[in-house]
Each structure stands twice: as structure tokens, then as C-alpha cells.
């Protein structure tokens, strides 16, 4: 579904991604793990057009999307729940959700039933229903994370990129976020997940990639990576 080959990307003169090749098969959940600064977020930003890659190929459902602006990539069905949530603070929760469906509401993507999808999001994230008329800026961090995920899902995406959905959340909420990711996986949503909680990510994922200093150093079945001694030492720690 999503295929990245020899992706190279830089911030100014600093090369962050050296040579990334990875594949997210349809209906699968792929976890991208690695330490801070390894290039996980940059990989997602390059895929969704927030950062123009220097070279390499990114295809989504057969369409080459590398170097296109974000808004055009969205039309091919790529949704990105970005690092730091980035909800629209001065708009109500419901409007944030509708904006997630912007390409559907403006004819750039098949419309479907947007209202029914808003309802579906309220079922998946009941707290958003209680807050539906509240401004997104007044939500708690956990609620904003739910909103960012729900907003991305409103695209009816072919592929969903999730960047650190657990960041800054209380442990109870981290569990809640991962149970929602598991439910999305049951619904056969194709996902690429970037996570600091590598153990939890590999627990729920089908495949995993390990990113180190802008290079993929290891990849394979999530279960296999979980049991790999090198991965255990570097990312999983004793406690997980």
C-alpha cells in the first residue's frame, strides 16, 4: 500500500534520513521504533509532504507522492496524526473532525457519509462526544490526542500515519490509546506507527522497523523483533 524506497531527507544542511526503505502492506500495522533523534518523525513528515525529500521514491497505492505538497498527498488517502497533536485550537471539536474530512467535503475524495463518520468517531472516542461543542484548545492533552487521531480517521484514509500518540499522556491514557490502535487494526486500517514505547508498539504491530541515525538497521516480524536480544537491550528495557 505504502512503499518507500531509498528516501533521503535533510533539514537545511543536516542530513536526517540517509537511506530509508520500508513497506506498509494493506491492512497491516507497521511500527517504526528508534531512539530520540533517529529520524522517526522526519520519516513521517517526508511521507506526508511536510518536508520535501531530497531523493527517493514514496508510492501510495501506486501513485508517486514524493515531493508533492501535503494537500495533494491527502487526496490519495494519506492521513497524518502529527507529533504534538496540532489540533485547531480555536475551533470546536466537531469542526476539527469535519476538517479531517475536508477533501471529502470539497469533492477531492469520495464523499461517503461524513455525518455517520463523525458519529462513528464519537463511538470510538466517547469523550469527544461530551466535548463536541468545546474549543479544541480547551481539551486536556489526552483528549487532544484522541481528537488528532479521530480527525485523521475522518479522511477514510488508505494509510494512517500516527506520530507518538502516547507522548505526554498519563499511563492510564497510554493504555487507552493502544487499545484504540488495536481496534483500528481489527478494522483493517493500514497504519504506520511511530512510538517511544517500543514494547507496546511491537506488541500491537504486525511488522517493525528499527531506525538508527537515519538508517534502517533492523526489520521484520514484530514478534521476532520483540525477542531479538539487541532490540531488547536497546529499546525494550527490563521493565516492559
Amino acid at each position, binding site marked *: 500500500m505504502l512503499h518507500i524506497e531509498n528516501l533521503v531527507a535533510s533539514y537545511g544542511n543536516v542530513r536526517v534520513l540517509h537511506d530509508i526503505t520500508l513497506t506498509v502492506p494493506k491492512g497491516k500495522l507497521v511500527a517504526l521504533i528508534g531512539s530520540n533523534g533517529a529520524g522517526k518523525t522526519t520519516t513521517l513528515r517526508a511521507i506526508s509532504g*511536510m518536508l520535501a525529500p531530497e531523493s527517493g521514491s514514496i508510492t501510495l497505492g501506486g501513485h508517486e507522492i514524493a515531493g508533492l505538497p*501535503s*494537500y495533494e498527498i*491527502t487526496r490519495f488517502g494519506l492521513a497524518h496524526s502529527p507529533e504534538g497533536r*496540532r489540533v*485547531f485550537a480555536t475551533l470546536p471539536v466537531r*469542526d476539527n473532525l469535519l*476538517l479531517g474530512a*475536508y477533501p471529502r467535503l470539497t469533492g477531492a475524495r469520495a464523499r461517503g457519509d461524513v455525518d455517520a463518520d463523525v458519529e462513528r468517531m464519537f463511538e470510538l472516542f466517547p469523550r469527544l462526544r461530551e466535548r463536541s461543542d468545546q474549543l479544541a484548545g480547551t481539551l486536556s492533552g489526552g483528549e487532544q490526542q484522541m481528537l488528532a487521531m479521530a480527525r485523521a480517521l475522518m479522511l477514510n484514509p488508505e494509510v494512517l500515519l500516527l506520530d507518538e500518540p502516547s507522548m505526554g499522556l498519563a499511563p492510564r491514557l497510554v493504555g487507552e490509546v493502544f487499545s484504540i490502535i488495536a481496534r483500528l487494526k481489527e478494522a483493517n486500517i493500514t497504519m504506520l506507527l511511530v512510538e517511544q514505547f517500543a514494547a507496546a508498539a511491537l506488541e500491537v504491530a504486525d511488522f517493525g522497523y528499527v531506525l538508527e541515525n537515519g538508517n534502517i538497521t533492523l526489520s521484520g516480524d514484530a514478534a521476532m523483533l520483540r525477542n531479538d536480544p539487541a532490540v531488547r537491550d536497546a529499546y525494550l528495557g527490563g521493565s516492559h
Partner: protein
Amino acid sequence: MSILMQLVVSGMAVGMIYGVIAFGYQLTFATSKTLNFGQGEALMLGALVGLTAINFLIGQSLGTFWAYLLMLPIVLAFGALQGTVVEWLGVRQAIKTKSEAGWIMATIALGIIFKNVAENVWGRDALKFPSPLPEASLSFWGIRIQPMEIAIVIGAVGMMLAVEFFNRRTILGKAVVATANDRDAAGLMGIDTAKVITFSYALSSMTAAFAGVLVAPVTLTGATMGAVLGLKAFAVAIIGGLSSGLGVVVGGLILGVTETLTGYYISTGYKDVPGLVLLLLVLSLRPSGLFGKATIKKV
């Protein structure tokens, strides 16, 4: 007392004009963090195009009132086009290269060019603009008001409410607000934010052109009418805050009223001083504006 009330009421009409131009500054600042320093010239061009249009329509043996109404869509369309040109020539490249000052010089330069063009097309004299409403004042409890002054207040408030309604109720309006909130995140939603910025420039010049034909019947029309209005409206935008719609209305009214009061009680020669003093006070005591939220620019 009735003199004071008279002065307050007279100040309100011009204050609303300041408010609606300042609102135009806000529209582009919200989406792009840039301003059109030729906003006064957008107003002036709107008024002069409106003058030519209304005189043509009156020449088609239409009454002044109907000619004025028919002229409005022409002026609004012209304003939108003019704003698009300004964004295209003066702002787009500066935003793309993240230039901090390029758009300032470019919009000032375009403003000067527009003024020169206007001087050559319409001449240097101040021209009378036909009033669509009777010019005789109405009297309410001893306070005299020109019908056109009432129309200014209604028109200005109506324009701002229309934009507010568009932003809150339509998906395209929500896309504008989303772009103002977070341009990158708006792009991730599938919003073409460059187009949204062009649109906000079109809308901004459209409000200025509209303000031009609102104020023209009570003032005179000419190539130099925009400069002072644009500058004062900029003061209003700073006083009211660049992010608050209510702020520019209140700021505009404060400036309009203090000007008429100063003109009467002190001297018309000092008419422009209190507004500028107020501007300096706000800048030193509350730099984000009376109604603005404090923001810290991260470097």
C-alpha cells in the same frame, strides 16, 4: 450634553470605517502573518472604480440609489481582484522564502504604484461621490445624523458579520480558520493553504473597497483619500489587537470618537494626535492590543 452626544454619534460613523479597514488587516494577518500596507490604496481604488461605475449607471438613467446598489458588486469584484494581484506580486514569494521584510516593502511599493495610477486615471482633484441616500440630516432627540452615516455603520457591521458567518458556518470558511490556526496542520487536512492566503488577500481588499464606497458619499473621493485612512486603521488594528474582531470595532469607535471630541473641544489641528497617543500607550502598556492575546514569538 447634547453637543457631546452629537460628537460621539458623528465619531461613530468614521470609527466604523476605521474598524472595517482594520478588520481587513486582520484577515490577511490571521492566515499569513503578513499585512497589505497598501490597504488604504485598496480603499481608494475601490472608491474611484465605484465612482466611475455609479456615474456610468446614473448615465443609463438609473436613480442614484439603484445605481449605488448595482455598483456594489462591481466594486466588490474589483476589490477581490486587486487583492489577488497584491498577494501574487508582493506577498507570495516573500512567504515562500520566509522573508521577514520583503512583503512590507512590496505592499508599500504596490500602494504607491496604485496611487500614481489613480492620479493619472482620475486626476489629482477630490471628486464628489453621488450619495444614494438623502443628504439632509435626520434628527433624533436633537442629535443630527446623516442617513449615509447610519448606512456606514450598518454596512460595516454587516460586512464583518458576513465574513464571520462564512468562517463559522461553511467548510471553506473553516479551512480559512484552520489555516490561521496552524498552516502545516491545515495542509495535512488537504487544504491548499497558499490558495487560502490568496483568498484572504482578496477578501481583505474587498472589505477595503467596500469601505471606500461606504465612506465616499460623506467625504470626497480622490487618489490621496486612502493614505490617512489606511494608516489610522492600522493604528486601530494595533490598538484593538490583530486577532480580535471585537477589538477592531471597539478600537475604531474609540479612535473615531476621540478624533471628533478633540476636533471640537481642543482644535481640529490636533485631531490626529489623541489616536496616535493612544497607539503609543497601547504599544508600551499592552503590546498585544486591548483585546489581543499575548503571544511570544519563538526564535
